[in-house]
C-alpha cells in the first residue's frame, strides 16, 4: 500500500476478494473432460455415471463439512431419503417422470435435513458426529423394517422410470442417457453451490467454520445459518440419491448405509474439503483407484486405499488439491495449518 495508490479498493487484498468468484481458465476443463469421456469410453458410461453421482454427493457434503464446518458422518441419510423417494414413488406407479422426481427427491432430502438439523445443530464436535450417525442408522433401520413400502433388505428393483423428456430411455445396459442426464444435473447443482460459496452468505458460513464464537459476537444468527446450510446440503444429497435410483432403476439399503457415508467423506478428504473442486478430484481419484485396485487385488484392494488415506491424513490435510496448492502458492499467502 503506497501513498500513490489512487483507491484503497485497488489494493491486492481488495482485488483478490472482488475477483475471487471470477471464472478461472481451468474451470471449464472438468466439464470438457467429462464430455470427452462420453465419446472416448462408451463402454464405461455406467461407471462414469456412478462417479458423477458421487461427485454431486461429495459437493453436497463439502457445503456442510468443508464450508460451514459441520462434522457429519451421516450424510447418506439424505442420499437415501432421495433415492427411496424416487424408488417408492416409481415402484407404486405414483410418479415416474425423472426430472420432477428429482425435485421431489431434493425436497425429501431437504426436509429430513431441516428436521434433523433443527435438533442436531444445537450440538457440535463428537456429539454432533454421533448424532448424525444415529439419524442415519434410524433411517436405515426404518427402511429395513418397512419392507412393505421399501422392499426391506432386497430394496425395490425394476423401477419404471419414464424416458427423459418422453424420448430418451434409461437403458440399464447402455448408460448413455443416464450419463448425460446426470452430468447436466451435476452441472446445474455445481453452478448453484459455486454461486453460494462465493456469496456473502457463503463467506459467513466460512466465518462460522473458522470461529463460531466470533460469529455470534458480530451478530450473526449462527444456528439459523447452519440449519439453512445443512438443509441445502441435504437437498443436494437427496438429488444425488434420486439420480442414483433413476440411473440404476433400483434402490436398496446401500444408499442409506455407513458405507456410503464413509465413502463420500473419504472422497472429500482425499480431494480436499472446503475447496469446491476437491469433490470432483476426490471422487475421480477414489473411484478410479477402487476400480483398478479391485481388479488387481480382488481380496486386498482396500489395503491400498487405506495406505493412501493414512498418507493424506498424516502429510496432506488439504488432500490432493491441498498438495497442489502447496506446490503452487505464493509465499505471502502461505497458510500453515
Amino acid at each position, binding site marked *: *500500500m503506497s501513498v500513490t495508490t489512487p483507491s*484503497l*479498493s485497488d*489494493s*491486492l*487484498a*481488495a482485488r*483478490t*476478494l*472482488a*475477483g*475471487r*468468484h471470477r471464472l478461472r481458465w481451468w474451470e471449464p476443463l472438468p466439464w470438457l473432460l467429462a464430455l470427452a469421456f462420453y465419446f472416448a469410453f462408451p463402454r464405461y458410461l455406467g461407471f462414469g455415471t456412478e462417479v458423477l453421482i458421487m461427485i454431486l454427493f461429495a459437493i453436497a457434503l463439502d457445503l456442510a463439512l468443508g464450508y460451514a464446518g459441520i462434522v457429519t458422518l451421516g450424510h447418506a441419510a439424505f442420499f437415501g431419503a432421495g433415492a427411496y423417494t424416487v424408488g417408492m414413488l416409481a415402484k407404486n406407479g405414483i410418479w415416474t417422470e425423472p426430472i420432477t422426481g428429482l425435485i421431489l427427491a431434493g425436497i425429501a432430502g431437504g426436509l429430513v435435513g431441516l428436521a434433523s438439523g433443527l435438533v442436531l445443530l444445537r450440538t457440535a464436535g463428537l456429539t454432533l458426529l454421533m448424532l448424525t450417525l444415529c439419524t442415519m442408522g434410524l433411517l436405515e433401520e426404518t427402511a429395513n423394517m418397512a419392507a412393505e413400502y421399501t422392499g426391506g433388505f432386497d430394496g425395490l428393483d425394476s423401477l419404471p422410470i419414464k424416458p427423459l423428456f418422453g424420448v430418451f430411455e434409461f437403458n440399464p445396459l447402455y448408460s448413455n442417457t443416464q450419463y448425460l442426464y446426470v452430468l447436466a444435473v451435476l452441472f446445474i447443482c455445481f453452478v448453484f453451490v459455486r*454461486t*453460494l460459496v*462465493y*456469496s*456473502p*452468505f*457463503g*463467506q*459467513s458460513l*466460512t*466465518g462460522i467454520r*473458522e*470461529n463460531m*464464537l*466470533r*460469529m*455470534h*459476537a*458480530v*451478530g*450473526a*444468527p*449462527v444456528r439459523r445459518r447452519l440449519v439453512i446450510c445443512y438443509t441445502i446440503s441435504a437437498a443436494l444429497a437427496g438429488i444425488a440419491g434420486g439420480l442414483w435410483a433413476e440411473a440404476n432403476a433400483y434402490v436398496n439399503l446401500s444408499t442409506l448405509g455407513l458405507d456410503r457415508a464413509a465413502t463420500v467423506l473419504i472422497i472429500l478428504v482425499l480431494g480436499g474439503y472446503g475447496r469446491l473442486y476437491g469433490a470432483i478430484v476426490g471422487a475421480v481419484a477414489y473411484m478410479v483407484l477402487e476400480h483398478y485396485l479391485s481388479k488387481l487385488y480382488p481380496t486386498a484392494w482396500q489395503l491400498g486405499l487405506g495406505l493412501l488415506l493414512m498418507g493424506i491424513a498424516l502429510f496432506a490435510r488439504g488432500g490432493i488439491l491441498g498438495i497442489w496448492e502447496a506446490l503452487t502458492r505464493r509465499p*505471502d*499467502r*502461505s*497458510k*500453515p*495449518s
Partner: protein
Amino acid sequence: MTALLETRSLSKNFGALLATRDVTFALEAGARHALIGPNGAGKTTFINLLTGVLAPSSGDVLFKGRTINEVEQAERVKLGIARTFQINQLFRGLSVLENVYTSIAERVGAATNMATPAGTRRDVIEESMALLERLKLADVAHRTIAGLPYGRQRLVELAITLGLKPEVLLLDEPAAGVPSAESHIILDAIDALPKSIGVLIIDHDMDLVFRFAKKITVLVRGAVFAEGTPREIGANAEVRAVYLGQATHGS
C-alpha cells in the same frame, strides 16, 4: 439522563462461586469508562453478562432503559453492543480483509445474500479497507491471520468489532500482548471514535487506563469496590492497597 448500558443488582454465581455480586453499574453515552480489578475479580464474567454470553443469576441488564436479560447475544450486537475478546477470536484461515468483511457484511445485512458474489459488494470492501487503513493494517490486508505477528492480530481483533459500528464498545484488554510501539495505534483508534458512543475498557495496563478513562470502576471479588474519576481512584488508599500496589509489582 438514561445510561446507554446499565446493570441493576446484577449477580452471577457458578455453583458456590459468586463471580458477580450485586453490581449496579452505568455506562453513559460518550463515556470513556475503565473497569479494573485484580485477577479473578470477575471482569470478564461481567462483560459476558453484558453481552449475553452468560445469563445472570439475578438482577437486570438494561440497554437505553430497556431490560435485555432475554435478548440473545447476536441480537444485542444488532442493538449496538459489541465487544473485543481478551484472547483473540479471529477467522484464522481467512485474510485480514475477509475478517473485517465478514463483520461489516453482517452489520449491513449483506450476509443473507446467497445469489451474488461477495466481491460485488464494493461498498463493504471499500469500508473494510478504509477501516484497515485507520488501524494501519492495509499493508497486510491480503495476508492470512495465522501468518501475522501477534500485535497485528490484536489490531484485527479490534477492527472486526469496530466494523460493527457499535454504540457501546466493550474492550477486554485490547492492548494485552501488543508491543508498546503499536499500542498507540489502538488508543488512537479509540480516540478517533465518535464521541457519542460509550466505551468500557478492561485492562491491567495502568498507564493506558489512566490515559484513557474519565471514570474508573474497581471490581474486587465480583463486587464494585470503588468508583470515581482517575484522580479519586488514584488517591484512594484502599484501592492502592488491593490493586494498584499489586500491579506495580506484578506483570
